């Protein structure tokens, strides 16, 4: 067999639903990885033309510039309410929000709890980078105890500002279709995260209630760490407070 005769196989290509443009994210940021996973899942499920995304306020505010799907842009924290409005009016569409931790776990806590408690049939992609990225790295409810941010310069004092917010504890009583936490560093984690996203969209389209995937993501810029160090911090420190796995609707149960 000559080299020309070796069969070629495409192992990776850019999902068509993603626009060919450079993202505005910092080096080492995994917002782009999360976008790609969502894009791949929508494409593989044949949901591209059926999907409506709800962007949130944070570094991912311009997510709609990268996706060739319909999008709306919510006010800070209100994406689950907006998604509710869209899904109720267009019940056969795939409606998802894409939110950061300041957006979802702080200012938007009311809207996400409301949507979860009503069992709203939407998918929520929640990117947790333990701080407010866009505004320059302030403390969030997800910030780790002792973690220094621009608004916790002495390290977060959990006694005064609370322990990291963990959705699986907070929402244990809600009837949710799916609830899982993945991480966006390392090939194995990324593959697993994609499976979670796929499962969330499938259960959402099967009308099983609110489906939720949290994705731990490094924010090298605001963590003041080089990308590789940020990756280590995520795996070594962040996962201590935010265990990876499926908490509701997973295969294990």
């Amino acid at each position, binding site marked *: 067999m000559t080299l020309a005769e070796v069969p070629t196989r495409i192992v990776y290509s850019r999902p068509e639903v993603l626009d060919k443009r450079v993202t505005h994210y910092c080096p080492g940021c995994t917002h782009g990885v999360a976008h790609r996973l969502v894009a791949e899942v929508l494409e593989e499920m044949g949901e591209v*033309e059926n999907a409506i995304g709800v962007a949130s306020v944070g570094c991912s505010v311009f997510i709609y510039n990268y996706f060739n*799907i*319909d999008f*709306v842009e919510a*006010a800070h924290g209100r994406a689950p309410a907006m*998604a509710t*409005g869209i899904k*109720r009016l267009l019940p056969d569409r795939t409606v998802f929000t894409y939110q950061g931790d300041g957006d979802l776990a702080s200012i938007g806590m009311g809207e996400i709890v*409301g949507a979860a*408690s009503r069992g709203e049939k939407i998918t929520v992609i929640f990117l947790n980078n333990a701080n407010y990225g866009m505004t320059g790295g302030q403390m969030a409810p997800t910030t780790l105890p002792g973690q220094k941010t621009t608004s916790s310069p002495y390290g977060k004092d959990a006694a005064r500002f609370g322990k990291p917010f963990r959705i699986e504890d907070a929402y244990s009583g809600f009837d949710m279709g799916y609830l899982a936490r993945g991480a966006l560093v390392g090939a194995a984690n990324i593959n697993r995260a994609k499976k979670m996203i796929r499962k969330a969209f499938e259960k959402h389209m099967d009308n099983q209630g609110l489906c939720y995937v949290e994705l731990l993501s490094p924010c090298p810029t605001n963590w003041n760490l080089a990308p590789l160090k940020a990756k280590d911090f995520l795996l070594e420190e962040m996962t201590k407070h935010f265990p990876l796995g499926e908490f509701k609707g997973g295969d294990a149960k």
Partner: protein
Amino acid sequence: MAKQLIKGNTAVAEAALRAGLEGYFGYPITPQTELLEHLSARMPELGRPFVQAESELGAINMVYGAACTGKRVMTSSSSPGVSLMMEGLSYIAGTEVPMVLVDVVRGGPGLGNIAPAQGDYNQIVHGGGHGDYHMIVLAPASVQEAVDLTALAFDLAEKYRTITCIMMDGSIGQMMEPAELPPMQPLRTEIPDWAVRGAKNGDKRVLTSINLDPPAQEVMNLRLMKRWQEIEANEVRYKGYFLEDAEYVVVGFGTAGRIALSAVRAAREEGIKIGLLRPITVAPFPIDVLDELTEKVKAFLVVEMNAGQMFEDVRLVVRGRKPVEFFGRMGGVVPFPDEVLTEIHRLVGTPQTTEGSPRDRWLARLAETIG
């Protein structure tokens, strides 16, 4: 269709439904709640979405999302709830998607009370949310008028891709009056081109209010302002009573306008040449008619259930050419026609001036009556 005795809130809810309401999102608050309750029964009956939201913040953002699908959607609330909606209203205005808001105004500020008031004029008419935007604001003075304005509210919102607010005082919402409801309209079938629906063939639509480039954002602002000028040119609505030969004119909207009408009628019986101008669209404000009246009359009296919010708009039109006096009751107190008549007697019977502060003069008089 025959008239029936019906409560304002229920009537507006039913009128909205019959105008083809496709989605309702709200939160309980007195004196608006019957509206939400009525739709909680009627919408599911017709297979249309009804959601009692977790808060007014949730409700307005659900409406925001639903409006992005191009369907007929609305929410309703009362003053404190509407305050909470201001963020969403600004976003909706900035995204140029149509919706209807019903504000059944109650006494404030703060938690205030559940009595009828008009203290939301400023936050509704002059924009309680951030940035430059306007809503069309309709102010009915009876249950029938509220019903009639409901379908119009949707038509105007959709025509101009804007928010229309039906601002009615708690009394219109709570009062039972005979009213004729419109027949049931079929739901609209066409989806506006801008509405999100899922991008077929990569033909995607993005609805957003963010624009990081100031010159581009200014262009967007300009578009909103031009649209508002068009609304001002075409959509002014008001009712004039006895204006033909009037030497004095009372200006009042909603319930205050209706009470003032009783006083004006009584004054007419006494031979006083007085009329009433009752704006139906408080935004756009009936500037031209007021301007014409300014040339003709001796003085104006503005009557409101607040501390003189529309009063400022009247003064802007009159521009000191004629005296403009003010009479208001606040905090949920509804004036009696007799009180307005007394004010009319004072307006007509004592020399009026364009000097000094009419509001100070009114507060001094009010202090004498209520201590």
